[in-house]
């Protein structure tokens, strides 16, 4: 059975290489909805980041939108702000154009950057697969390191009061100088609209 799985694994989307926990988090400099460029260095006081690949158009991303807003509200003051990046190619997904991103950030009063990923550079560097896809990044003495990747929680339908909040748990661990107990999860989401896919 294991052999079969390994066999099947070799085929699937070799071109998307999702960065694993422990890997260095690539630094990016991308245009925000206010036309200013944003990078990790825009937040000199930050201890880390909640990098969220999300978009305007995906129902799962929309279902999680308020939770992203809440994460920023809770953790930005503690040194872990949200940086949202739209990974979709606007030619393939009209609703994710820079103009539409501006509209959404404005109407939903995003208090965090919502970045346009020209040429899907950051999307491909991180290997973002779907929306929403989260990377919790910690600032260490040896640079920016991915500490967690995957879903916000295990309750997309908001029906389980006993849900596990993976991102919150990861940041709480980092605040205690510990490794997150869960460093990687999966979730059903909308595949990133990649050019040439």
């Amino acid at each position: 059975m294991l052999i079969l799985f390994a066999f099947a694994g070799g085929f699937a989307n070799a071109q998307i290489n999702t960065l694993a926990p422990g890997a260095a988090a690539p630094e990016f400099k991308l245009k925000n909805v206010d036309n200013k460029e944003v990078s990790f260095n825009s937040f000199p006081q930050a201890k880390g980041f909640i990098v969220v690949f999300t978009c305007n158009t995906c129902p799962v991303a929309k279902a999680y939108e308020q939770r992203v807003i809440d994460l920023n509200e809770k953790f930005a003051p503690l040194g872990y702000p949200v940086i949202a990046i739209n990974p979709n190619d606007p030619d393939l997904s009209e609703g994710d154009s820079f103009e539409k991103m501006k509209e959404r950030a404005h109407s939903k009063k995003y208090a965090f950057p919502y970045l346009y990923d020209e040429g899907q550079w950051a999307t491909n560097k991180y290997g973002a697969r779907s929306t929403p896809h989260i990377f919790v990044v910690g600032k260490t003495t040896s640079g920016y390191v991915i500490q967690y990747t995957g879903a916000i929680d295990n309750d997309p339908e908001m029906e389980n009061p006993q849900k596990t909040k993976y991102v919150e748990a990861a940041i709480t661990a980092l605040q205690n100088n510990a490794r997150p107990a869960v460093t990687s999860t999966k979730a059903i989401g909308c595949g990133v609209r990649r050019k040439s896919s």
Partner: protein
Amino acid sequence: MKKLLLCILSLFFVKAIALGQRPGLLTLDQLNARLKKGKDTVFVINFWATWCGPCVKELPDFERLNKEYGDGRVKVLLISVDFISTFRTAVVPFVKKNKLKSEVFLLNEKDQQSYIDKIDPSWSGSLPATLFIKGENRKFKEGEFTYPSLLKEVQTIKTKS
């Protein structure tokens, strides 16, 4: 009289099939049991959702595959991962509206962390995704298909075993 009634009933039944599928709920165990029964069949299992644009776009290609090759040697199963709570409000109406002829199910599993890996460890959970199975051979692919690329996968797994 009874015979007549039976006749009318069966007519209704045939008509229901001709108009399209009635989607049902399906657990992974039920799916595996189904796959075990058809060792000579190429199963093309597409994971999709009513809210997934690229999935909806490629559904006609799966329908075409089912129509042209669904003679018992190739079996298309369309498995929706829509929220279970939207089965009646989204999935059933979608299948009806689009008159889908392939078999349609809603995956009756709640724990994504568990079921995604069981379907394939290489699956990130992003949609669409398709699993090709014939006997012990399987191939999983995340991403979209065109009709020619779909046919190619079916041929490949058919000739491998």
